[in-house]
């Protein structure tokens, strides 16, 4: 793992470098293969990563770099072959690439789901759902069904549902990948605002370099097959960042070059 050699004024130190803070996510020497026999794929090999509490980390890589696999491992959906993952005891929330709202429930009931599983009191649930719906600007749509919402609204509802878990960690797997550019831009602003308001730790997977630079405190570049950390790029530009600003473009350019080198290696 090497740290970026971009000029110091662009990048600076990553957020919260105090050594005392225990990481919100600690991934240590993780190995994961899937499939079996001939079609066996080594997805992650000796993968390690720490994410600090409140940090916004973007995982970036070409296809086959095991980004989604890593999130599913952290969320406990897949089993770990070797190594360890430690997260805070409150579990993790997750926003998937495709909208994964339950189609038979209203938006409000969807957001409420995890609180029902945790047997929270009805009154408390109601209040929290109201808060979250306001937070993602969907208060007026609480009684609608998911299919009555646009893709961007569904992703915001999914975000509210994940936040309702009250987890310290939020995993996002290319959440804006299928949205149009305009909506994606708005949702990036929205996510940044919510992240600052809630101080949640975000691990955000994307293949869009400018999205990563736009949002991340740190951009972690992964190699493909097997997934390893090639390089980390701390981004200390002031927020909110604009994807058309010169500083952002410079960082995007540097990261894209590095990514291209990695892709060529497989050519």
């Amino acid at each position, binding site marked *: 793992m090497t740290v970026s050699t971009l000029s110091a004024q662009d990048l600076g130190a990553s957020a919260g470098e105090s050594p005392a803070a225990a990481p919100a996510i600690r991934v240590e020497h993780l190995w994961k293969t899937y499939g079996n026999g001939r079609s066996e794929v080594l997805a992650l090999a000796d993968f390690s990563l720490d994410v600090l509490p409140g940090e916004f980390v973007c995982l970036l890589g070409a296809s086959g770099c095991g980004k989604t696999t890593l999130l599913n491992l952290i969320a406990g959906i897949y089993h770990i072959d070797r190594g360890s993952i430690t997260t805070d005891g409150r579990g993790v929330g997750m926003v998937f690439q495709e909208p994964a709202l*339950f189609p038979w429930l209203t938006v409000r009931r969807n957001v409420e*789901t995890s609180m029902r599983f945790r047997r929270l009191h009805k009154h408390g649930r109601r209040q929290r759902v109201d808060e979250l719906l306001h937070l993602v600007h969907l208060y007026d749509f609480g009684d609608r069904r998911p299919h009555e919402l646009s893709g961007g609204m569904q992703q915001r509802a999914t975000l509210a549902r994940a936040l309702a878990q009250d987890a310290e960690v939020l995993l996002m797997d290319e959440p804006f990948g299928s949205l149009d550019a305009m909506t994606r831009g708005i949702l990036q602003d929205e996510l940044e605002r919510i992240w600052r308001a809630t101080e949640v730790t975000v691990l955000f997977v994307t293949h869009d370099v400018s999205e990563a630079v736009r949002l991340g405190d740190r951009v972690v570049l992964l190699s493909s097959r097997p997934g390893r950390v090639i390089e980390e790029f701390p981004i200390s530009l002031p927020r909110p960042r604009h994807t058309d600003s010169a500083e952002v473009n410079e960082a995007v350019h540097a990261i894209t070059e590095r990514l291209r080198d990695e892709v060529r290696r497989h050519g």
Partner: protein
Amino acid sequence: MAEPISPLDQDIRGVDALDIPRRDRRSLALAVWRSLWPKLAAVALVLVIWELVVLSGWKPTYVLPPPYVVFGRLGELITTADFWKAVAITMQRALFGFALAISLGTILGLAVSQSSILRRAVGSMITGLQSMPSIVWFPFAILLFGLTEGAILFVVVLGAAPAIANGLISGIDNIPPILLRAGQVLGARGLNSWRHVVLPAALPAYVAGLKQGWAFAWRSLMAGELLVIIASRPSIGVRLQFARELSDSAGLMAMMIVVLAVGLIVDGAVFGNIERWIRRNRGLEVSR
């Protein structure tokens, strides 16, 4: 809330307003009429053809009576207590048999969907059983149970349960994996997962299985009532049989209309409405 609206808020509202599908505001009366008139037209067409065949003199009218005679007969029948007793006996058998088929089919479906060994063992057998004409079971059922309610019930359950089991199995098999993963991340474990994720997600296919199961149950029951005639139990089937023996064509056809009507009412009014409700709730309706 008196907060000033930020540009971001305004963007979001604008995009939402453009994106959101408009709610349907058609009146109920119009909707009912739109669904009703093609059916009425089809019925009218059938009656016209029927009347024309009678007028052609192909068969004497004591064998093939014209529609007004049959419906006149039906009008008389529904004022008699005997008729309603027969309908009550038949419906009682249908509902009891169908309820039993639902319980057995559901348990079987759950078991097969969860156990790969059971699936390999009986999975294809369920489909095989479903394709077997239920009337084939009657000689065996009569040997086993004699000319009793048990024989009829046996065949009704055997006819309907496989369709119900298959519906549930395919419903559970075809749940989008993303919903199961979402449930897992949200903390759905064990019974919670079944109650809040698996069963609601499998519901549309399960209801389709129930609907098909009802059709099988009703068919098996009618076959059973024609074959298994119990002296003190004057059912719809018994009345059909007697009408034939007495060469009472009008009475026979009136009873056939009753059989058709019951089947249609349960299929359309009960299952049709449940299915429509599910489709509307989940946005599975295609607007043309």
